[in-house]
């Protein structure tokens, strides 16, 4: 299968995206892969497979590679006397801003390029954790109680300590801290404000059970991964989560009852259906007293959560064959014609 992996982006998670792309190159090695890198200035480059190394980008070697632009239906590479079109289905692997906030989705929709990844509306509701809370309320999905703070509005917290402080729109635990008492709050807020003007604060539930479940819809059927119980010390911060970078080993299935697994899947369905079609997503859940709470939605999980699937490559192939089509209005000027003919012109 032909597939183009689109990665990079002007995002705090830019480097994680590079690692994800390198991991997938290995995981999808039987595919006919090509790689398009979006640099922090929003230029696209075609990267040769053998150049897919982290150092290529840190040393700006990519700038010597062919630059691409977009036309309807394809990325194109302009040569001296000709141009080459790259029309493969794209796997959007840009984490964080650009990739998960709907920018890339809108761009690819606009240029009629087929892609695996969240559509614009799905991106909006998963990228900003405030909107995820609203989605939960609308779809009657349980989630952790929360409060909002922003740089424009100072107010006292009514939540009891310990709390967890998160920038509203970042993944990968970036800028997240646990605050045990009031003396630690100020620094934790400043840490989060480095990344976002809006901050979400939730109670930190000690000893909470955390489960991750990934899945996608292909050919009208939901496909679920195994349920993973992520390793955590107190919680995973950015370094711990990504210093063991290319988690590509298959993890062990969490030891949970089939009832709980069914509950997790049911909640996953509620999140996914009529919103995330076309994407492989991972939902992170908390389980408190047998109740399933949605913690967050990762519409482009790190390395596409490949390690949670038995047949990851097969899954990507199935997903690619059942992508939603953006409905586009056809313009035929009927109305103007009818007026013109009524006027006898």
């Amino acid at each position, binding site marked *: 299968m032909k597939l183009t992996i689109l990665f990079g982006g002007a995002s705090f998670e830019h480097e994680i995206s590079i690692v994800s792309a390198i991991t997938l190159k290995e995981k999808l090695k039987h595919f006919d892969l090509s790689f398009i890198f979006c640099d922090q200035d929003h230029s696209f480059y075609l990267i040769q497979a053998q150049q897919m190394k982290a150092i290529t980008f840190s040393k700006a070697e990519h700038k010597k590679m062919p630059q691409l632009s977009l036309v309807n239906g394809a990325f194109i590479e302009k040569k001296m006397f000709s141009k080459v079109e790259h029309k493969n289905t794209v796997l959007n692997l840009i984490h964080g801003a650009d990739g998960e906030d709907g920018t890339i989705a809108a761009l690819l929709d606009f240029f009629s390029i087929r892609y695996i990844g969240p559509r614009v509306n799905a991106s909006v509701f998963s990228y900003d954790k405030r909107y995820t809370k609203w989605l939960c309320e609308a779809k009657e999905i349980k989630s952790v109680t929360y409060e909002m703070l922003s740089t424009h509005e100072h107010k006292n917290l009514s939540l009891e300590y310990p709390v967890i402080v998160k920038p509203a729109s970042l993944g990968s635990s970036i800028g997240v801290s646990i605050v045990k008492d009031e003396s630690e709050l100020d*620094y934790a807020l400043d840490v989060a404000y480095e990344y976002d003007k809006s901050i979400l604060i939730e109670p930190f539930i000690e000893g909470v059970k955390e489960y991750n479940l990934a899945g996608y819809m292909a050919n009208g059927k939901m496909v679920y991964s195994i349920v993973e119980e992520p390793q955590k010390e107190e919680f995973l911060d950015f370094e711990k989560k990504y210093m063991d970078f290319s988690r590509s080993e298959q993890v062990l299935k969490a030891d949970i009852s089939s009832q709980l697994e069914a509950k997790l899947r049911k909640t996953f369905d509620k999140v996914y259906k009529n919103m995330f079609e076309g994407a492989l997503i991972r939902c992170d859940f908390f389980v408190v007293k047998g109740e399933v709470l949605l913690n967050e939605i990762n519409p482009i999980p790190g390395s596409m959560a490949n390690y949670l699937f038995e047949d990851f490559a097969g899954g990507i192939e199935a997903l690619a064959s059942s992508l939603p089509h953006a409905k586009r209005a056809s313009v035929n000027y009927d109305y103007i014609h009818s007026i013109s003919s009524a006027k006898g012109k």
Partner: protein
Amino acid sequence: MAIKSLQYKQSTFGISYEIVNPEAKVDLIILHGWGSNKNLMKQSFAPYMKGFRHIYIDLPGFGKSTCCKALTTEDITRIVEMFMVLINASKDVIVGHSFGGKVALLLEPKVLVLLSSAGIYINKPLKIKLKIALFKTLKVFGLAKLRSLFVAQDAKTLSEPMYQTFKNVVDENYSDKFAAYQGKALICWGRDDTATPLFAGELIHSLIENSIFEVYYGDHYFFLKNAKDISKKIENTFLSTLGGE
């Protein structure tokens, strides 16, 4: 990392900072040099001095801190001071490298640690003097566009307010201020430093009454390879100020 906004002279400054060992009771403020940033300092010192709350600060206009107007060394000092109030930090020990050394001095900490500090006026070599004279002549003839050929390496990529700041702070003579400092100072220097030569360090040592002078192998950035030993000396210097009073 973290960021805090503050107002100074009708402008907003975003000060980026990072705290290591947040539970420690004694504050250690660490200021970088011109054109550098807190990460370089943190890389060197974060593994050591566990008994101190390390506060690494990006000075306005450097690293991730913002700055939209020209400042003097005094302005920068006041901004750091206001910032310290906001994070409830005290002036127990302040470390400053190069330009940061001048700011550290003006903050008047109990223990001042200078790493190849600026603040002693060094006569410009003849070559530089000629370059300046030539450029000033060219300016008269409307050839100021050639500026990039003349500007100091330290100033090449600066924004306009930062270039103005650079001109404000470079070449200041702080001899009197060093002499007036009443606290305890630890002065560390790189033997082969060309930016702030060794004799400048010796002079500062002679000016500050209660000071210790340590010379290390290395250049202006000698502390990168000597952080462990310097940290030990900082701890000892701080301990020597306790007790007996």
